[in-house]
């Protein structure tokens, strides 16, 4: 299964491009799931039908869904709250548990919700040939793509520190009681940190696996869009993620910008999507558009 992210500045045509790719891939016989994780969904407009969090088959081989991020935040908080209530039961006497509701305003929860939704889609639909994500605008996308690496940095330091503490505790037990300490084996905090490391390592490996995970940056032929795309390129390189394709949407025939792109984004293929004056709504419009790209290249 291959995972493709369509990313770029807001309004450059990420949803249209991802819809077009998903549609053409399905037409070529592949099984494709297209999931919008952008809080401002557009896929229902492009496919001209109602969509929600469960996949809807648009044509044979193509299922489309729009993930409700608020629901993921709520689900996550519900699970956390359940955990809290089990530990801090005494707080219910003061009705303190209702203050847990404020957790939903914690910074960073939105990108974590995106990550949860993404992980769920990849796990649930791993029998598809392609899972394509129409992502939110740059800031949020870069944050959730960086989240596994950032989390791993923290967790690896925390696990080392926790092990040092537990080792010392085991030494004390040995000196005092003359028997081997079991803190290292039993500590629930250490176990949970280790489990989290496994989860984030899998996600990080998936993101860095350039053969099976592809990032397509969509941009328009203008300065602002170019500048933001450069930023995405640099940030993703820092995360050891590569960008095999750039879609130059609304291309007006100016080849000089393509030369700039090929110079700035080394090793990246530039795909030109010509300016289209008609609105792209419905399957007929998608049928008419030519991708000018060999879809088999995605299999490499």
């Amino acid at each position: 299964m291959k995972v493709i992210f369509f990313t770029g500045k807001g309004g450059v045509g990420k949803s249209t491009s991802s819809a077009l790719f998903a549609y053409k891939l399905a037409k070529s016989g592949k099984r494709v799931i297209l999931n919008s994780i952008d809080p401002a969904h557009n896929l229902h407009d492009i496919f001209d039908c109602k969509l929600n969090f469960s996949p809807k088959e648009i044509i044979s081989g193509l299922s489309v869904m729009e993930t409700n991020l608020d629901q993921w935040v709520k689900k996550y908080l519900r699970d956390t709250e359940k955990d809290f209530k089990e530990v801090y039961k005494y707080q219910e006497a003061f009705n303190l548990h209702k203050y847990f509701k404020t957790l939903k305003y914690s910074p960073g929860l939105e990108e974590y919700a995106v990550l949860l939704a993404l992980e769920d889609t990849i796990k649930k639909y791993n029998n598809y040939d392609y899972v394509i994500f129409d992502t939110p605008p740059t800031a949020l996308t870069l944050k959730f793509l960086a989240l596994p690496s950032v989390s791993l940095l923290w967790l690896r330091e925390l696990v080392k520190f926790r092990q040092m503490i537990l080792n010392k505790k085991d030494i004390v037990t040995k000196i005092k009681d003359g028997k081997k300490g079991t803190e290292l084996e039993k500590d629930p905090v250490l176990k949970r940190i280790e489990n989290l490391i496994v989860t984030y390592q899998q996600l990080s490996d998936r993101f860095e696996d350039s053969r099976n995970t592809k990032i397509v940056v969509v941009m328009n032929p203008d300065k602002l869009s170019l500048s933001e795309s450069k930023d995405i390129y640099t940030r993703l390189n820092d995360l050891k993620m590569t960008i095999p394709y750039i879609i130059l949407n609304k291309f007006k025939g100016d080849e000089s910008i393509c030369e700039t792109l090929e110079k700035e984004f080394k090793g990246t293929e530039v795909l030109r999507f010509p300016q289209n004056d008609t609105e792209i709504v419905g399957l007929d419009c998608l049928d008419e558009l030519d991708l000018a790209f060999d879809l088999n290249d995605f299999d490499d």
Partner: protein
Amino acid sequence: MFKRLVSVIIDFFHDMGTVNRENATTIIEYEIEEMEHIFALLLFGSFTGMPSPPVHITLQLLPLMEKDLELIFTKVATAHDGLAEITNILGEV
């Protein structure tokens, strides 16, 4: 009488051993307590304005760390008198 004397001597050396082991571990235990405090502070740094891990890591570990939180709050009370705490430990050794 002889048996009782032997028993008292054995108990004396046993207690001596226990006291020595206690003394030997006091500083390590203090160090462990400090390290646990730093660990909790690293994890819940946002409470005190320190950089902290992404919030989902904190939230996932928080339910397991009731004791560590207690330690933080105890530390708040004793933090102003660190010197006394150290001399206390050294006095015990």
